[in-house]
């Protein structure tokens, strides 16, 4: 049976898994009353996010219909979105430092 994920806003390019999906699992992404499918490319635990489209480096990642950060690398559709590929842009006092990376 397909694993369930919730897309909160129709603008979002990620959805939140309600149950853990394994690589190859069909994921049923619910947006309000609408459901569409995406295949998980890797294991994504419950409460974590799955990319619904290919997201290119530097592109905004949207949840709640709002920006929650940007892609720090290219993110393929169906893969997990978390700290390894999403960079928050707010509160980044480190970026103002002279020795900032």
């Amino acid at each position, binding site marked *: 049976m397909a694993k369930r994920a919730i897309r909160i806003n129709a603008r979002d390019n990620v959805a*939140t898994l309600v149950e853990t999906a394994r690589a190859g699992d069909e994921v049923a992404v619910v947006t309000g009353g609408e459901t569409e499918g995406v295949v998980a490319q890797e294991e994504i635990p419950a409460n974590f996010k799955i990319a619904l489209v290919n997201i290119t480096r530097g592109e905004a990642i949207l949840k709640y219909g709002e920006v929650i950060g940007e892609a720090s690398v290219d993110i393929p559709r169906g893969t997990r979105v*978390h700290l390894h590929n999403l960079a928050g842009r707010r509160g980044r006092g480190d970026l103002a430092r002279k020795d900032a990376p």
Partner: protein
Amino acid sequence: MSWLGYRRPDGSAGARNHILILPGGLVGSKICEFVRGTVTLVTAETGHARTTRDRRRAGNFLINLGKSPNVAAVIVQGSAAGGYYAELNLERIAHEISTTGKPVALLTADKCGGTLGLLAKGIEVAREMAWQASRLKREPVEDGRLSLGVKCGNSDATSGLVGNGVVGYVFDKLVAAGGVAMFAENTEIIGAEHVLAERAVSPEVARAILASAQKMEERGRVAGEDIRTINPVPSNFAGGISSLEEKSLGAIHKAGTHPVQGVLEYGERPPRPGLYYVDNNANTFHMFSSFSSAGSQIGLFQLGGAGVPEGGFLDTSRGIVSPMLWLTGNRVTAQRAANSIDFSSASVLGGTETMEEAGQRLYDLILEIASGAVTKVETINHVDPFAIYYEDPIF
């Protein structure tokens, strides 16, 4: 809808009936050991060596906590009534609390023959106050007399999806009934402040909301700190939250949908009913003392859950005079901390209940607790310390 509360002379209604000893220290804690129904402060905060605005904040906190509807009577005690900083002057504090019409006693060591004399007098007065307060009877009062404050913590994906939204339903219903609803956490509106500002009742309030987030972001710049080393906290990352923006956008769901009437500072009482944002940081020891001082009879803690151990106890008494009510939308958390959590909305993600049904169930539970049912953590006889949230450094 109505609940059973203690009617106070100023028109407010109490969910509890405490005798409050202000401030804390040796005499306050010993009176509490001796006399049933008393409560005092456990903190290192005195307002000493603080700037004028922070001393004013500390003084107003003491006054407003004394005015809390959950407090039946107050003893203000210390070494001497006069002197000290004007903002923290004991006579002023006692006088301001007494404007509510509730009994207030000012007792000082210089008039009682020293500290032991003060303690003896304090016990005598507190016993009389407790005896009198026990004669007050709960009466039906409207739900609009309630004031609630909420904090979310250990947030995970369930917080933004369900748990916070259920609180938002309760806030909407309470505000519509004429009550007060407060939320806060100035680091955790960063990334969502524009959404809140659009809901402000006026351009001034919108500017104050944006300024609150800007202030915190600027402090991060001055420190050269990546906010992600502080917030989101590790348990948020473990719970599926990836950035501060994501955390904030989920956090504001607990504020419901009504317009934001104003921005309050730590411990400030709202001037009118409605929904308020408090420019307070997210820490538990600052949060619930502030809500209680602002007049809230119950403090809600909406828990996500990564990091909650099996069988772990949660904080018991950060609100000093107002009980803490623990909530979660996470099924695993509800089971792990069943000893402390009174309410779970995990049924919504499970598909057996709608958000509105869970919200109504929470609203009914809040009225029950306001009427005298104790929360799970309220059964524990322990006093958690709190802290006053200052703006300026200590001198």
